[in-house]
């Protein structure tokens, strides 16, 4: 029977074609109308370390989360098989290179010793000799269907046919993998050609040799290794998709939202956003230039936020993007933005800390950094996005809020979202608006302009160039000149601080937090950011098991939807409320307590740097319900 949902893991050394496999497959699948979500795990390394893609494709939705076990484990190298031997379903497929069968585990130098020891122990327990060939036999004995291909001889055929130089051949390993997967799930030649053409749009000469191999392998696999995992025809109605990473979704939101100045200092996992903006710096429509985005790589993050603020003062929609270490450097600047009511957006991609921590892995442990960093009190809005579409829309919204209320806005994301790729519909801009707030370019008495007029909470803002104004990090009067007068201080400081109430009153709580599911479930899960997808998927699975789970998704970390959240928890009771987070401390519980007085004492957390997978969340929820456990620490994944 054709399948509606297929999960696969493709692994290999970093920098040897995984990117191509992922790109081609996703394009080919989208070409057939499927919804795809794919995540990437990689070391802080450019070439050689083990990396993998976890990909999920569905005929009836865009998948919201990733999960194990996978139906297909496709290995570019022996290390992948060793590392992921427990990740493949016992009725699944293993695609591997028979040429590597003699490889011994202890000969794999790119593997960390801790990982090797753990795998060694596991194999020992199962009585398996740590040699690839033996491991494959073992997996086969467990029911895994083994697709052994001789990568080298497949590639040398290519050499003869297409005259590819021997040292270039290994670059085509990716098409062996793509072909094997195509054969298993039933992708035809046209789809493969579409996938490769998309990948190699700029290097068309690469399309045919790659298609040749992929089709060859696909034919071989589909005829030799059946029955396969044929995907049913897609039921999704989309006529076109955009294939974007979270970074790109934010960048596209910024383009639509009118960012015309973006400064940044390179840092994982934020840099891809600025890279993307730079490669699309000229905003064109046919021959018409609609504008341009000036992307400035600064000397550090301190300069990045300062330059963005300078551009904002001059009237540009300006933003910067960074992650933890860089955001720490921006803290002083953020405080200046608060004092000077500068509309600025800082896109903050969390990763594993403290310090440089796990620089290429994900986390949600910077919630309070985003909320409280910077000295003194000042209003700030912190928005956290749960998925690709939210990320895109929130980027636009963050820019509007920054200008509407003249406050710094932090757009909080995480590595999981930043680096995962999804098929989304082409953004519909007809539902989006740009609100520039009280931006004025005509000032009656430009030499007597009160930038910080106390007449209103949000003063009319004339950019530099239209009137004479002063800004200072010190407390200031209505003109922007320094003052230490106590009475004026009370007025100015209150004016700024009271904006928070204004924002809270104008943005409905239902917009700032959303309840998914029943109002009185068996269990209420609370989360934010990329937790959203996995909880919603887990809830569906639990439902089938007779457990009713609701999800309270917090989108605005500040201003917090205190009443809505308080009520939702109150109805269910804190005893039946569980925080879910990629952190040790489940910070969201503290934030809820601060804002509602309700102390959540149950939590499901994960801080391995890998995302929470659906299957482990389902298990964790059942454990909490069955055994009354208060805290479950998840750790699945390589």
């Amino acid at each position, binding site marked *: 029977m054709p399948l509606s949902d297929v999960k696969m893991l493709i692994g290999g050394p970093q920098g040897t074609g995984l990117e191509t496999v992922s790109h081609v497959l996703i394009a080919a699948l989208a070409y057939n109308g499927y919804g795809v979500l794919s995540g990437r795990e990689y070391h802080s390394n450019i070439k050689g370390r083990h990396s993998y893609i976890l990909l999920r494709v569905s005929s009836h939705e865009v998948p919201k989360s990733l999960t194990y076990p996978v139906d297909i484990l496709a290995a570019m190298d022996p290390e992948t098989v060793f590392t992921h031997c427990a990740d493949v379903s016992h009725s699944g497929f293993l695609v591997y290179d028979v040429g590597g069968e003699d490889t011994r585990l202890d000969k794999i130098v790119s593997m960390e010793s801790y990982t090797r020891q753990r795998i060694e122990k596991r194999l020992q327990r199962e009585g398996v000799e740590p040699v690839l060939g033996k491991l494959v036999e073992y997996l086969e004995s467990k029911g895994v269907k083994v697709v052994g291909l001789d990568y080298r001889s497949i590639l040398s055929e290519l050499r003869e046919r297409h005259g590819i130089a021997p040292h270039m051949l290994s670059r085509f390993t990716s098409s062996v993998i793509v072909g094997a997967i195509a054969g298993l799930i039933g992708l035809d030649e046209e789809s493969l050609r579409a996938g490769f053409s998309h990948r190699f749009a700029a290097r068309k000469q690469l399309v045919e040799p790659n298609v040749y191999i992929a089709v060859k392998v696909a034919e071989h696999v589909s005829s030799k290794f059946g029955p396969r995992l044929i995907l049913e025809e897609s039921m999704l109605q989309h006529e076109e998709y955009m294939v974007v990473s979270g970074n790109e979704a934010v960048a596209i939101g910024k383009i639509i939202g009118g960012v*015309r100045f973006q400064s940044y200092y390179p840092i994982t996992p934020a840099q891809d956003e600025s890279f993307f903006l730079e490669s*699309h*710096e000229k905003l064109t429509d046919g021959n018409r230039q609609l504008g341009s985005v000036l992307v400035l790589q600064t000397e550090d993050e301190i300069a990045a936020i300062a330059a963005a603020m300078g551009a904002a003062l001059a009237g540009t929609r300006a933003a910067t993007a960074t992650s933890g270490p860089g955001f720490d450097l921006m803290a002083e600047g953020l405080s200046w933005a608060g004092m000077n009511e500068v509309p600025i957006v800082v896109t903050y991609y969390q990763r594993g800390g403290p310090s440089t921590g796990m620089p290429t892995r994900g986390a949600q442990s910077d919630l309070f950094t985003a909320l409280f960093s910077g000295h003194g009190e000042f209003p700030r809005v912190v928005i956290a996005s749960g998925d690709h579409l939210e990320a895109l829309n929130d980027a636009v919204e963050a820019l509007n809020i920054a200008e509407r209320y003249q406050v710094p806005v932090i757009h909080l994301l995480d590595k999981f979202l930043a680096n995962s790729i999804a098929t989304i519909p082409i953004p519909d801009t007809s539902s989006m608006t740009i609100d520039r707030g009280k931006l004025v370019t005509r000032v009656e008495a430009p030499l007597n302009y009160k930038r910080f007029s106390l007449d209103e909470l949000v003063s009319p803002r004339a950019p530099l160039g239209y009137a004479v104004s002063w800004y200072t990090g010190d407390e200031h009067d209505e003109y922007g000149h320094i003052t230490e007068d106590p009475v004026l201080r009370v007025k100015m400081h209150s004016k700024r601080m009271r904006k928070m109430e204004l924002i809270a009153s104008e943005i409905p709580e239902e917009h700032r937090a959303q309840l998914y599911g029943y109002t009185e479930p068996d269990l209420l899960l609370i989360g934010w950011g990329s937790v959203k997808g996995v909880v919603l998927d887990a809830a569906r699975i639990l439902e089938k098991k007779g457990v009713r789970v609701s999800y309270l998704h917090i989108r605005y970390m500040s201003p917090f939807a205190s009443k809505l959240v308080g009520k939702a928890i109150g109805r269910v009771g804190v005893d039946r409320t569980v925080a879910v987070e990629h952190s040790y401390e489940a910070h969201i519980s503290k934030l809820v307590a601060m804002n509602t007085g309700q102390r959540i004492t149950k939590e499901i957390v994960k801080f391995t740097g890998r995302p929470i997978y659906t299957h482990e969340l389902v298990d964790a929820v059942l454990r909490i319900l069955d055994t009354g456990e208060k805290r479950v620490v998840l750790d699945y994944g390589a």
Partner: protein
Amino acid sequence: MERSPTDYRTGLWVDWCPGCGNYGILAALTQALAELGLDPAKTVIVSGIGCSGKTPHYVRVNGVHTLHGRAIPFATGVKLANPELTVIVEGGDGDLLGIGAGHFVALGRRNVDMTVIMHDNQVYGLTKGQASPTLPYGVQTKGLAKPNIQGMLNPVLLALASGYTFVARALATDVKHLKQLIKQAVKHRGAAFIDVLQPCPTYNNVYTAQFYRKTVYRLDEDPDWDPVVRDPSQEHSKKMAAMAKAHEWEPRIPVGVFYHNPLVPSFEERLQSRLGNYLEEPPARQTIVSGSDGTPVVNTESLRRMLGAKVITVRRSKRAKPVIAPMP
């Protein structure tokens, strides 16, 4: 419109110590602004933190008093967002060369069209007299408990090495000369730096106004001194000459223009050649809303065309054709 220096003063009480060199810099600055006839609304003074950092509040043009050391990146954002503005940075030696040294260097590399005026009093004034990066090793000024244990940084050399295309030094008390240099620096298209020797009578009793009066000499007194690069082939030799001059300190300290190279493209020109429309439509001047209803100018249609490489059109017949061999 004729403007006088007093038109460029705010009338706020100036809270520098009596005898401070900053008064001379303020006078020279307002005179230069007046003589250049700059529109106050289109002129921006960006400062850091310190005694020098307060300068913008005394000048009636836009003033952005930023964070300690950060004036240059703020100014860079302002200028690149709207290159029509005249941007002048005022900073202390601690500000620009201590905490802000990385930004100081970066500006030279970029050659953004702006002027940096450094109030060089060799001390941290506002925090009560600690040694700044321009105080020589072994010197003990009034406020120091011990002689300076760190070495001196040469600002003129650093500016030359970083790529500033106009590099000068002046004495704060010679208002006329400083004014002249500020005017030249502002007119120069590129990153301009003026190291202003600024006596601080409160904390620096070594490098005093009297000291400078005795030691300073003008580069332009030498009829053969020509710091201007008129042809790319002169770039190297003129920079070398400037560097040699910059090495002079005691007993005689040169002031005037060390190096002036108008041939290096400014950052704005570089952006223009990359973005095409940068100077006509810089970031701050671009329309991002179409019409009055808030519709973004970049809409679904333009996005689809612009990001074509990200778009996949789903094929009509989604069913896989049996090109691949049937299952056995």
